[in-house]
């Protein structure tokens, strides 16, 4: 389960940055990358919160 969550999280991170590279290379319309970044954001926060552990004790 944890590895599935991690996979979705990393997909979210990829969606946050890869579309901008496609915009830069001319392979994607500028407005479309907003949507992909939003989806990436939702995927990241919806899953990473469950597998990134809080600090054991504060420094």
């Amino acid at each position, binding site marked *: 389960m944890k590895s599935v969550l991690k996979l979705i999280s990393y997909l*979210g*991170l990829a969606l946050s940055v890869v579309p*901008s590279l496609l915009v830069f290379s001319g392979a994607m319309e500028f407005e479309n990358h*907003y949507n992909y*970044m939003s989806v*990436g954001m939702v995927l990241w926060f919806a899953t990473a*919160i469950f597998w990134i552990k*809080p600090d054991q004790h504060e420094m």
Partner: protein
Amino acid sequence: MSSSDTHKQSLVERLDAVNEFEREPVSKDKLHGAKSFIAMFSSEHVAGTEFVLGTLLVLHGVSAFDALFGLLVGNILAVLSWALMCAPIAVKERLTVYWQIRKIAGPYLTVIYSALFAVIMCVLAGSMVAVSTTAIAHPFGIESPNFAAGDVIPSLPWMLVACGVGVVIALLAMFGFEKLAHFAKVCAPWMPLIFVGGAVASLPALGVTGPGDFMEAAKTKIWTGVPAEGVSKYGFWSCVGLAWLCNVSQHMGMGDVTIFRYAKKWYYGFASAFGMFIGHYIAWICSGIMCAAFLQLNGAGSNPSPGGIAWLGAGWAGLVCVVLAGWSTANPTLYRAGLAFQVVTPGWSRWRITMFAGVGMMVAACVPAVTFYLDMVVAYYGLFFMPLGAFIFFDYWVFPKLGLQRNWAERLGLLASWPALVGWFGSFIICFFLYAKEAYPSFAWVNDVLPSFLASYQPDFFMQVLPAWILAVVLYTACATIQQKLYRGVVPPLKGSGASASEPEVELVAR
């Protein structure tokens, strides 16, 4: 000064009570590996204020060379300061900065340090609230204040949004600090990608269609070397100094000995590179690119607020990034302000202190000048608090070589160390006047009373860090030498821990 006065004693007791659980050196079983420090620096130094500082460099007309190489040099100096100055003392002493200052400067100066530190933390938290507010105001069509265009006070709706954000942050800091620390950790890997994604997607708007076009656009459209109207010009040394100075209270000022006392090895100080180069290099460059694209599309006179430039570069994800970047760093900042205020507000409950600090934060958020001059606020903050760290460094490494006793205030039970007072305020006041005589017309008279070599000195404020450090240690060492020579008695042994604890009882030769 004597510690016999009851009122004075109660103040010292209050001060110590705040740090009650921090006075013992960290034990071996609580030490952390390098990964913890890499994660901490990576998350703490990508803040909402990066949207402001990167933008300010563009508006102050730095050139592409100044930005790309000046920031590189400044950040390298910052990392070296952490690794070679702060971390080695932290792992040898394993005490908080509070106790280290107390040992050499005495509890009274530590009270002053704490109170002033609380005020500046409120101001910095306020600037982070202001950054978040620009993002929340943007989709509602509420115009963010443009200080450069003469907006001294924000509009009422903007202030209401800022107060709303401030209240939420204060409430969360009171009741959910640990959960927020976890949430900030979750934000850490995502936020830098939003900066990078927003900047890369903005490049075509600046005419960059391939990697080969970047440097040309950087020179002519991003960091043009021409400041915005009514804004002073920054150069290479301003970039070096800002990158080095913006966290000087943490590295050369030794604030992060509190963090690095948990490090297994001194060289974990190099972990700061992750914070500096992700947050203060990549993020500043990215926000500069987004700012330039914003000005290109909206006109040179437009207001490149953090919310505006993030919306342009990354849409809703950009706005959320601005809100979270401001929010996640404002919370620990407010928490630190609350802890520092506790020293001077005996008997107040935790929630009352945090609310008090929160009000200060909201007032600061509603002063657009704070955000507009954030680089100067950060520079003054660094210069003011840095000397105490310089004393810790000199007291540890140099005093024994000069035949001087370490931790003099603690050994003699002094409430305040006058050499530390002279070194602290002396270095700051001298450096301030040397800068103010050129920068502020009301201080021009200073040139008339200075010798010609000083009157012709035209410092870059951000590069005052080096002369300030040298002045501080020279004044402190000279005064400490006089103080210790004047003392005629047996120096009591140290009861504390660290390397100095094993020093033998020494009788000073009285003259």
